[in-house]
């Protein structure tokens, strides 16, 4: 299975996402923002960072990157795509996910080990978990406050599109404690905390982050990979 990890000029956690995918057992292909070719990958991770500096709205420029046009099309055709932090922001800007991520309510960047509750395991990226499972992974963002209009939020609730919520404290003021959402099909996931930083006992607070990467491998094995 090939997982592509995109590098924008300001991507920072791309190496970490690649390491996590590798530990989970995937073959990793590095994708470059200016190259629209996906080089035959079966799934894509949009990593954390500051894509093009993000002096404008986070992800607002990245959504127009050549690689994003191909990824958007592939995502609509069912390819699993996970956006972490800045990747989540880009997926919202690209309208692959509803809602938006705004400045943390307390206005500070915040980095801490964060408990989440998995609310939905019916996605390409969370099938390894059980609903209600509590996991510990790092959160680190300045603009991670998820917002959407009430109707959208209600729809997300009703459709089971809220994939994870913050528990034991909301680190950024996210509406309804939302930490991760998926599209209706379940192949696209946006998550604000960083699963790729919880894949080794030596460097992370837990190994809980690995579940996201092994989930997509299980998913790909299940649906069969196009030749």
């Amino acid at each position, binding site marked *: 299975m090939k997982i592509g990890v995109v590098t924008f000029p300001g991507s920072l956690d791309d190496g970490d996402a690649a390491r996590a995918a590798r530990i989970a057992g995937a073959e990793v292909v590095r994708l470059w923002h200016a190259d629209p070719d996906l080089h035959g990958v079966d799934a894509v991770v949009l990593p954390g960072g500051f894509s093009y500096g993000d002096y404008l709205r986070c992800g607002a420029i990245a959504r127009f990157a050549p690689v994003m046009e191909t990824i958007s099309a592939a995502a609509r055709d069912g390819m699993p795509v996970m956006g972490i932090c800045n990747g989540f922001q880009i997926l919202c800007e690209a309208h692959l996910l509803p809602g938006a991520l705004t400045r943390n309510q307390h206005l500070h960047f915040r980095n801490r080990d964060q408990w989440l509750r998995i609310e939905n395991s019916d996605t390409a990226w969370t099938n390894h978990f059980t609903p209600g499972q509590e996991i510990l992974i790092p959160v680190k963002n300045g603009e991670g406050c998820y917002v959407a209009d009430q109707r959208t939020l209600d729809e997300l609730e009703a459709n089971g599109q809220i994939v994870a919520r913050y528990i034991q404290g909301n680190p950024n003021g996210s509406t*309804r404690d939302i930490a991760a959402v998926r599209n209706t099909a379940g192949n696209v996931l946006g998550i604000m905390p960083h699963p790729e930083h919880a894949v080794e006992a030596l460097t992370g607070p837990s190994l809980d982050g690995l579940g996201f990467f092994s989930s997509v491998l299980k998913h790909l094995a299940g649906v069969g990979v196009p030749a």
Partner: protein
Amino acid sequence: MTEMLDQTVAAVDTVRLAEVTPDELQPYLELGLKDDEYQRIRQILGRRPTQSELAMYSIMWSEHCSYKSSKVHLRQFGEKAPPSDRLLAGMGENAGVIAINDRIAVTFKVESHNHPSFVEPYQGAATGVGGIVRDILAMGARPILVMDSLRFGAADHPDTQRVLPGVVGGVGGYGNCLGLPNIGGEVVFDECYQGNPLVNALSLGVLPVDGLQRKEADGPGNIVVLMGAKTGRDGIGGVSVLASATFDEASQARRPAVQVGDPFTEKLLIESCLELYQANLIVGVQDLGGAGLTCALTETAAAAGTGMDVQLEKVHLREASMEPHEILASESQERMLFIVEPAKLDAVLGIAQLWGVIATPIGVVTDSGRVRITWHGETVVDVPPGSLADDGPVYARPLREPADLILLQADRAETLPRPHHDHELRETVLRMAASPNLCDRSWITEQYDRYVLGNTVLAQPEDSGVVRLDEETGLGVALALDCNSRFARLDPYEGAKLALAEAYRNVAVTGADPVAVTDCLNFGSPEDPAVMWQFAEAVRGIADGCQELGIPVTGGNVSFYNQTGAVAIHPTPVVGVLGVFDNVAQRIPMGFSHTGDVLFLIGETRLELSGSEWAWVTHQHLGGRPPKVDLAREQAIGAFMAQAAQSGLVRSAHDLSDGGLAQALVESTLRKGFGASVHLPEQLEAFTALFSESAGRVLVAVPAGHRQAFEALIAEHELPVTELGLVEGEGADLTVVAADAHTGQFSIPLAELRAAFSGTLPKLFGGATEQPAPYAAPAAVAIETVEIMSAELGTADAVAEEPPAAVAEEDTEGR
């Protein structure tokens, strides 16, 4: 446009003009040059300097660039340095380079950005991080981490409310955007820093041992390429006016002299540089920091003994109206200078283009031995580069022990009234844990990304930051930054040694082998003989200490003029120690983590309260002599800890420093939420056992099964040790039992302790612990009625839509 250009050129002071107008009055005094220094410039050039040349000399001969007051003292670092086969580059380079094994080397340095951070806290601190990262980059290394050592005025002073959030935001904003984990440092509050906060930033980079880059502009005919951000009017005079003069009422008007950072451009610059190094495309490289282009051009030419012809109009400008002397003095950030063979120029420009960075050939290397700079065809600078880079003035400034020192040392804290009863001791533990210098730093450190790059093994609040360099072998480094400036005020020689001892111990307790030192020497005005004496004593202390410990000072930075009016800061020699791990998996963390582990205190406790945190917090007292420092003991502890780490004998270890044993217990219990029962030794008064700040002590937790092996190893290293008690269960109290019945015993529930420890900074600086009530998620996630959802939403939405109250104070971020 042409007309404007003509005017600009016509108004410029050229070498031709300088030759025919020898008597023109020049503002050298305003630029910070003394009469005799100006006369020396005229002598060197055989005429008056042009406006551009005057700007260049004033910058390069400033205290900040020339080290003119400190040079005679700093020589000791080289002279007393113990021989080290690890040292690949030392003092005088952008940063020292240390071989970790036969393949991998690291380069590291700490540097100050104090003055800019007072004027414009966010940008001052941000560009401090940017500057030290470029120093590391210029050595040929990939920067992989940062640390920060911060000092502010009193925590509750209104100006600290302005400076601290800005500085912390700047350190975080820049480092986070570069993708460099911030793994540690220190935050200290003291009234002496009220008008002179200190922002010292450290970075470390990794390079192949044969990948060291040179700064020499070798090879006449080679091209001089400027890469990175456009050059603007920011930071002009930053060096000569800002960094080398004492603050006064006019300081606020100097805002334009602070540089503005663009971390995204720096990130692109880092990636471009590393590709250039890897493809072996450059002959030399120098970062543009203080003194900007002036420093980079003259230092690279002087180092090679060559010359340079530069066409200044080729420099990309943010403002077309900039004049040559402004371009030469600009400290615009995110710029590097390269020396490139003509045949490789296209490849260099290609890499810049790939990353979207501006790269411009601006001149050629010559064998003339002169740096000649033209502006639209007119020569505006023609100087021997060595006269700027190497031959600046050197002063042996007068030294005099501060007049008040004898009285200060006589006023010992050991004579202050101290508490004896259990309830008083209990109150003191809580009060100390909540005091600004000892309390939880999370409000600050949570604003820093410590995870990025995925190699952070230990980060704040641990004693050292520990980072893995090699995923396969686990090879890694440990780093600590420390200084107790109250000790240095009481005795700068011993205080500097104590700073070194503490940083060394902080590295050693994690199990790493300490190998090298960097320092950032923050002092008042060198023109004050008392300050200069403190400086000389501190340098001597570090140099002697390093000689005794057998580890070299590899580089660092001096920051003078940290004073307002006649009042200088405490002498603040911040010391950074680098340690090496063969395998970071062996690192020893600080928190108690297993019920039943046996607690031991390694080292000796004496009645040493002068300069202590207790004396300051409870009596606002500073006087006496600092604790005794015994570097041989520190070394023995280091050797013991390294062996204990390798054999897994010690589960956790925590250095004792500010706040003594009491504070170490607070931090070790709260780290992972395990209680402890401690029986204080009989020989000591309970108060002394808890709050003395004797150096050379470590609190360790040993698995019960390893007790015998532990004691045997302690005996082998001839270390004094006291058994203290046991680690209790998760959530158990911290219980302290005194040896004499008169004092009794006390217990503190961890929740109460945590509330005291963690409440202080959020209370002072706002917000961090206030959490909206958790969203009451419906039990069945998928299907709920819309009515219930709307009702639930009332609270959540109200919180989300609350106007961001602090937008105004954050507005610097967008500039």
